[in-house]
């Protein structure tokens, strides 16, 4: 039994994470400025979930002639016609448009479908969606409300469980993750839909998970080494957690990797966002959340700092 990989992961690393934190802070700041700028300049590519409009997914018995389809859409006379092919599935494509002024969305879809079938007899519509402008706005609002509430509640939990400076560190780091993820979505132009909100919430979940696990170790070490400087304890805790972080991160990426390749075009944006979220969440745990605790400092050797126990086994 020589093969368990864990033997090859160095046991006692001595990376000076905190020393690099200022560099990381500058790096993150640049990325955040870039993300915010992109969000303002380019905005998110809102899908019909949030913008309203019509979408038809079509399938043909041969690779879809995208250029012909595009010119056909322009002839039909709808607004904002977009034709989108899928690299992995050349026989299908997505057509999006806004119905003409005063036209019922469903009538517009039916009309476009009829016109397309007239031009391409082997074309079949496999899925159609029509979302009204009103419901789409409400969806976006409720989506962001969900993000906000989830963030506040987890902040509350971490504050209650560890203390305020931990909670602040975690939330700043998680907001950092969300902004960068949104920024990436904006730069790459991935369509922002209801499932992207789900992906963002998962990113929050994973990122919080990372933070909580490191906080836990930090807290324990603070009690163990009462006189060691905080900065060294942070480094120590991160090093102790490193092998776990690598293994868990790799597993998560492996699990999603299959979906990224085989999940098809519909699932791709969701998985892409999650993968980025896992990477950025791991980064921000190490370089944002923990160093921030150093900035604010923590109470040590204080009875108040005893963690609340949930009937869990007590520490030795």
């Amino acid at each position, binding site marked *: 039994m020589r093969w368990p990989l864990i033997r090859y992961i160095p046991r006692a690393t001595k990376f000076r994470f905190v020393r690099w934190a200022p560099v990381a802070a500058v790096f993150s700041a640049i990325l955040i400025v870039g993300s915010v700028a992109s969000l303002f300049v380019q905005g998110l590519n809102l899908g019909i979930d949030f913008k309203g409009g019509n979408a038809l997914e079509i399938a043909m018995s041969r690779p879809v002639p995208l250029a012909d389809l595009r010119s056909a859409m322009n002839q039909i006379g709808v607004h904002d016609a977009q034709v989108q092919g899928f690299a992995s599935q050349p026989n299908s494509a997505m057509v999006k448009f806004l119905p003409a002024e005063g036209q019922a969305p469903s009538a517009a879809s039916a009309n476009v479908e009829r016109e397309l079938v007239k031009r391409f007899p082997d074309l079949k519509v496999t899925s159609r969606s029509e979302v009204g402008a009103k419901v789409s706005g409400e969806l976006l609002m409720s989506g962001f409300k969900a993000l906000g509430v989830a963030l506040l509640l987890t902040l509350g939990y971490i504050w209650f469980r560890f203390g305020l400076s931990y909670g602040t560190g975690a939330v700043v780091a998680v907001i950092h993750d969300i902004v960068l993820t949104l920024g990436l979505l904006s730069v790459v132009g991935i369509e922002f839909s209801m499932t992207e909100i789900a992906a963002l919430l998962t990113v929050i979940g994973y990122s919080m998970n990372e933070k909580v696990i490191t906080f836990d170790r930090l807290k324990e070490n603070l009690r163990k080494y009462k006189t060691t400087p905080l900065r060294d304890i942070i480094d120590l805790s991160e090093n102790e957690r490193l092998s776990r972080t690598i293994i868990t991160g790799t597993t998560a990426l492996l699990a999603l990797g299959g*979906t990224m390749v085989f999940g098809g075009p519909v699932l791709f944006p969701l998985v892409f966002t999650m993968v980025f979220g896992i990477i950025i969440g791991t980064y921000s745990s190490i370089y944002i959340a923990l160093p921030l605790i150093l900035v604010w400092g923590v109470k040590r050797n204080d009875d108040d700092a005893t963690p609340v126990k949930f009937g869990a086994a007590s520490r030795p």
Partner: protein
Amino acid sequence: MLTLSRWKIIAVTLSVVFGILFSLPNVLPQKTLDAMPAWLPHQKLNLGLDLQGGSYLLYEVDTEALHRERLSNLMEDTRTQLRSEQIPFGELNQQGEIISVRIGDPARYNDALNLLRKNLGAPLAGAIGGKDVSVSGKGDNRIEVRFVPEAIKADAVKAVDQSIETIRRRIDSLGTKEPSINRQGENRIMIQAPGESDPEKLRAIIGKTAKLTFQMVDETVTPEDMQAGRIPPGSEVLPGDQYAPYYVVKKRAIVSGEELTNAQQQFDPQSGNPVVQLTFNASGGRKFGEMTGRNIGKRFAIVLDDKVLSAPTIQSAITGGSGIITGNFTVQSANELSLLLRSGALPAPLNVEDQRTVTAELGADAVKAGSISLAIGAVSMFVFVILAYGLFGGFAAIALVVNVLLIVGIMSMTQATLTFPGIAGLILTLAVAVDANVLIYERMRDEANAGRTPMAAADHGYKLALTSILDANITSLISGLIMFSFGSGPVKGFAWTLVIGVFTSLFTAIFITQVLIGWWFKTAKPKKLPIA
């Protein structure tokens, strides 16, 4: 902790049995499933519309249109009441929510006020002696009539309830398989019809208001008057049939579709054309009889959704409580109209807010893509975790398999909907589940390196990792629950998968591996931890 107490073994065995039993229907062919005894679980995963194909419709009940109509009826009632007592009045108009009228004869002002207070409006449910209309006197011989706010709200609630009922009846008569019709928010109705990939057919049936009324044709208006727009108050112009493009009819309906007990497609014995035969209830039959008796030789209009279907001349009193409506029907359109009339009118128009359809074919592709990615994700995780931790990794992999079985079993049992994003949620749940085992094993390793015996190290690994695991899962649970309460549609499915996953992962990652490792210690009696 690693002692194999009886309850632990029982819990683990039971959960494995449960997981296998409840997820089994998903892989068995339908024939085997049908042959299984009734006490065994038969429920398969409830696939979302995005996975199995089907239609999703979100309607908004236009309660404002309903309210506008009620206001205009109230104005007509005010006019009729004042006329019936021959109280002179003028300046009857509606401004926003308020209907105001000026009484011409100051001496009869109080009469008018009492009359309107007595006769307008209906009792308000839930308020003793309260009415849904308030009548108040303003100086200068003016009277203001309006609906009380509670009535407006109650009307809207009732309209949505009634719409849901009507839609249900209409969909049932179509024979669509297991549709779900739910209220969403204040005035929305969500319809999910799995397997129904022709939303146009659904919509054609659901969206029609099907408001049928019988109204007298206003014979006093000449075609010239109509052209010049001289329409008396109390009458209205409606688009017509093949005989006349427009009709002027009295606004007040004499009989309406609510008084119907039945409607059926038949053939007109005289012309042989398809017609719709109506049967009225007692009060409707009486009103219909009176109206036709009083107006022989005049015409009445059969109005459906503000369009005149036909305007026959009354030959004789129709007293039998039934009648036929003719129009330019085909057998199919007569059938459709009868269906709509039977299921009742919608109290208010419906606006489509969101409509999505996925063909079953695309749904099947989605299931295939989802299963393949799930399988590949799971297998690569198994391989990796075994590579990382050897034997203990194998235990973790077994726990993962049980985890999948449990999630699938619980979702089949509770008939929670599995959506496309839900599959992604499932994959991520598995990834985070591994984290619990990683934490435990890392702890064991630390403890073993600190000089504990293998047994004690393993034991402490579980104990010490538990807090971290709980913390991490509680945060996951929080975001899952938030998604569940705020999200809709696919996000809800995703959240549900996540929430179930938190519980099953906690259980499998901690208990299954513990029992397996405990059993291994008992049989192998190792001198050294395999991961140290």
